[in-house]
Each structure stands twice: as C-alpha cells, then as structure tokens.
C-alpha cells in the first residue's frame, strides 16, 4: 500500500534562544501530519510543544531562532519563505486555534468583525456575501441565533461560545492545517468535551490536518489519531495513540501516564517521575550535544 505524502513534514527541526549561550529549545524534531489526521503534541512545560506550533505558524518570538531542519507544508519549506509569501500561506493554508479565547479576541471589536477578518483580507468578501458566510460559519459551529451573536462583543458571550467563534474563524478560509494550541485548557470539563467534539467534527468534514498541542493525556487519548511525546525539546516517543497509551515503549511516557490522576480508578496520580527515568532523560538530552535541558 502506498503511504500518502504527509501534509506537514517537520524534519530535523532545531531551535534555540537567539542570545548566547543559545539555550536549545528544539532538538532535531521530526514529525509528519497526514491529511485529515489529528496529531497530538504532548509534554510538560518546557517540552517544546508550543514552540513547534509557533515555528509552523512562523510566529516564533524574536528571542527564538530556528537553527536547523525544515518544515514542509505540501512540499513547500515554510522556513525558507519570504515574509510576503508566508503571509499568503497563513490563514489560507494554516490557521491557529489559540488557548485562551478571552485574550485572543479583541474586547473592543464585535464578533462579526473579528470572525470575518480572514474573509475580508484574503478572500476580499464584502457586503451581503460576507454576512451570509459569517452566519453559515456560526451555524457550522452550532451557535444558535448567529445574527444576534455576530453583533455582540466578546465579553457578552460565554467562554465556550468564544472558543467556538475562534474555531469558526480558524476554519473560515478552509485551511489544510490547523494548529490547536491547548484549545480547551481554560475551559470547564463539560464545555471542553463539547469543544473537542466540535473540533473533531469540523476537522473530519473539512479533511483538515490538526496539530493538537496539549499537556492532557486524557484529551490526547480521546481526540488524537497519532501522537508525539516531547521532553526538553526532543521527541521521546511517536506513533498511533492507542498503541502508545496501551503499551508505551519509553519509560518517560509510562511515567507520565502513572503521574496522571484518574477519575475512573483509585490510587492514581501520586507517583512522580522516578529519579532513574529523569536521569535517563538528561543523558538522552546530552547525546544531542546541545547542552543540558532547562527542564529537570
């Protein structure tokens, strides 16, 4: 059977702080995202999961510089694009679902204006066509009474509804790839479940590839087809979600699972990462020859 070419191919991506002594943040990261696949990036703080997402979007903070490797979207290396070419790709081919729906929306602009930024700037839609499209987008994300919601300001709607608006905005230009950066971390569990369901539904119906950044192995288990476990900017383990969670091959993945509290069994969630696992991780980081990791 022929393996389809990946939608997103990250090959040997390294990144570091721009200022000396150039602390490494990503160490030769390789990962593929196929069309229509949800690929989870999991790890604790400092693992580099958000840095990978930002590198793909071309929005790394100035303090961070890529220092090796390629990021190819359908064959085009994004790191080599001019700012103008990258600007054409952002929104239309890659979009972001951010973590915090409150800070991601401008408090002084109505929902309609923020939702339709992409459609106005990149599709040049105006007038009734724009209005109709906005209503259709909100219907897609199951928001009742879209006309009324479009007139509101962000503070006038609930957190779950704000996150739905951002999902609608991300899908508005029908991108090939979406980076979802901890999109449900700020939400209550019941709202989280609805939002996860919605992202999955939209992603399936549009055939979108998704990079799903999260620290929550439960969310990964229920949403991601494949996953990459990261530690200190390096890939620790990668593969099918069900296979890895059922039988992790790396002791760190095992330790993360053991440290995760469970609502469906007793006696979980109090086992920290064993010292020998932490020591082995530090030794692996050292093998990359880029200095020690920040995260111990």
């Amino acid at each position: 059977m022929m393996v389809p070419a990946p939608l997103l191919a990250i090959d040997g991506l390294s990144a570091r702080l721009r200022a000396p002594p150039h602390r490494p943040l990503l160490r030769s990261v390789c990962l593929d995202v196929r069309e229509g696949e949800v690929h989870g990036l999991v790890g604790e703080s400092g693992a580099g999961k958000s840095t990978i997402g930002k590198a793909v979007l071309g929005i790394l903070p100035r303090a961070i510089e890529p220092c090796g490797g390629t990021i190819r979207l359908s064959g085009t290396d994004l790191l080599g694009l001019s700012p103008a070419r990258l600007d054409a790709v952002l929104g239309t081919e890659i979009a972001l679902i951010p973590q915090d729906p409150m800070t991601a929306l401008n408090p002084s602009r109505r929902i309609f204006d923020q939702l339709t930024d992409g459609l106005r700037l990149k599709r040049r839609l105006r007038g009734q066509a724009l209005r109709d499209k906005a209503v259709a987008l909100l219907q897609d994300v199951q928001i009742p009474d879209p006309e009324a919601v479009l007139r509101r300001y962000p503070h006038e709607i609930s957190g779950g509804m704000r996150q739905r608006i951002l999902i609608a905005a991300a899908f508005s230009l029908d991108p090939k790839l979406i980076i979802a950066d901890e999109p449900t971390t700020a939400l209550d569990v019941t709202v989280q479940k609805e939002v996860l369901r919605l992202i999955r539904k939209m992603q399936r119906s549009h055939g979108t590839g998704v990079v799903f950044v999260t620290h929550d192995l439960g969310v990964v288990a229920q949403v991601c087809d494949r996953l990459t476990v990261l530690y200190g900017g390096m890939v620790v383990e990668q593969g099918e979600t069900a296979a890895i969670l059922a039988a992790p091959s790396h002791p760190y993945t095992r330790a993360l699972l053991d440290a995760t509290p469970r609502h469906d069994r007793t006696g979980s969630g109090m086992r920290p990462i064993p010292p020998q696992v932490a020591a082995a991780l530090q030794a692996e980081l050292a093998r990359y020859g880029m200095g020690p990791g920040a995260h111990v």
Partner: protein
Amino acid sequence: MNARKSFGSRPRARILHPVSLTVRRGEILGIVGESGSGKSSLGRALLRLHEPTGGRLSFDGIDITHSGEAALRPFRRRMQMIFQDPQSSLNPRHRIRTILGSGLDLAPQTPGESRSEALARTLAAVGLDSALADRFPHELSGGQRQRVGIARAIATRPEFVLADEIVSGLDVSTQAQVLALLKQLARELSLSLAFISHDLSVIRTLCDRVVVMRAGRIVEARPVADLFDAPRTAYTRQLLDAIPSPVPDPGWLERGPIDRDLAATPAG
C-alpha cells in the same frame, strides 16, 4: 472542628445559597465545581474571610459567624490558606526565611527548639532543603515555590488548611509530588484540609470526602469512593462523563448531551 454554615449575600447578587457542611478533624474534604459554582466563595467563607449574610459558622465548637477582627485573631493562626499561584502569593522581595518567619512567630513554641531549627523543620516537612531559606522566590522552580506556599501555611501549626486550586497550574509530575505531600502532611499533622479543585480526577486521588457545587448550592456531599462509583445526581454523572480518560474510547466523544453552555450567558 465543626464548621456548619449557611452563607448568602443580598438577594440581588446571591453568591451562595444557604449551604451546610462539616469539615471533620483530620479529614481531606474536596470541594469541586465548575467556574462560577461558588467553590472559592465557600472556601473563603469557611476561613471567615467573608462575613456571611446569613447562617452560622463555627470553628472547634465556637461560633465565629459575626466575630470582629480582634476576636478572630486567635483563630487566624489555626486556619490557614494555600494559594493557587505561588508566584503571586509569595512576596518577591522577601527571602524564604522571612516569608516563613512571620508564620513561625505565631506558632506555639516547641520547648528547646531554636528559631532556625523551627525553620529547618518546616522546610523539611515540605521536602525542601534548609539551604533554600536564604533564596528569593524567583530563584526557585515552580514546584519548589508551591512547596514554600504549603510551608508558609503550616508554619503557624494550623488545624484547618484551605487549598484553593493549588495544583491546577502544575505539570502532572510536579502535581503528583504536591498531592503526595499534602496527603502525607494531613496525616502527620492531623490537619483538616479543604481542597478546592475543578478537577474530579485530582479530588479522587487526594480526598476522603467530596462536596459537588453548582450555582452556589451543594449538589452532592459523599465519601469519595461512593461518589465516583455511584453518583446520585445527573449533574455529578455529567461532570464525571465529561472527563477524558487516558484510555482511548472511540465512542466517548460522541456520548452525552450537554450544550447547556450554549445559552448565551456572559462569563463570570
């Protein structure tokens, strides 16, 4: 300890409807609920940081519902709080020694124990080296800062400690250490601990009993094992069903209704 209380504010903006609960001596009580459910208001009422507009609050059998600050002072040492964010709750200009010192000054003295011995004992109780006493909060890791926050609370040798969402910003590996530490401290110091969290999985890990809150009311209050195995209310069942388990379940995402969030309520 017997803190039975009802608490409500003016009808125009009622935060808590009359609620009744008891925190027993040596018990770890979980208080769980979604945002806006009133769990933090309840916690602060238990510490008498708010004066209730109705009902009664008693601590160790003494009614403190309407006690003034002077009358409350002896109780303040006996009830302490661990805050969510150790970054913002520890004074950045003070060394750890100073941060813990004011609490230690209030604690009953152990005969023959010097000030620095008391400091070392308190740090050791939370698993920190006494060498950290001369550091500033920014020189510590997030996990170490949270341990200092716990040390600050137990420095006065309290009988009741309120912990409000203290692990929600932590990585799972650090969270596991903090939960294990709390369990151990509660046992060793015979503490009554009220542990507020939005995370039922964490509650199951740590607590003996749990109170489920919704819209300022207690929905269910039961021993942890009972509640998780056989929730009595539809609301609790809904909360449990909404927690993703790290075991893939192909039907989970599609199961269950909800959509109550879609009512256009402004966020609190």
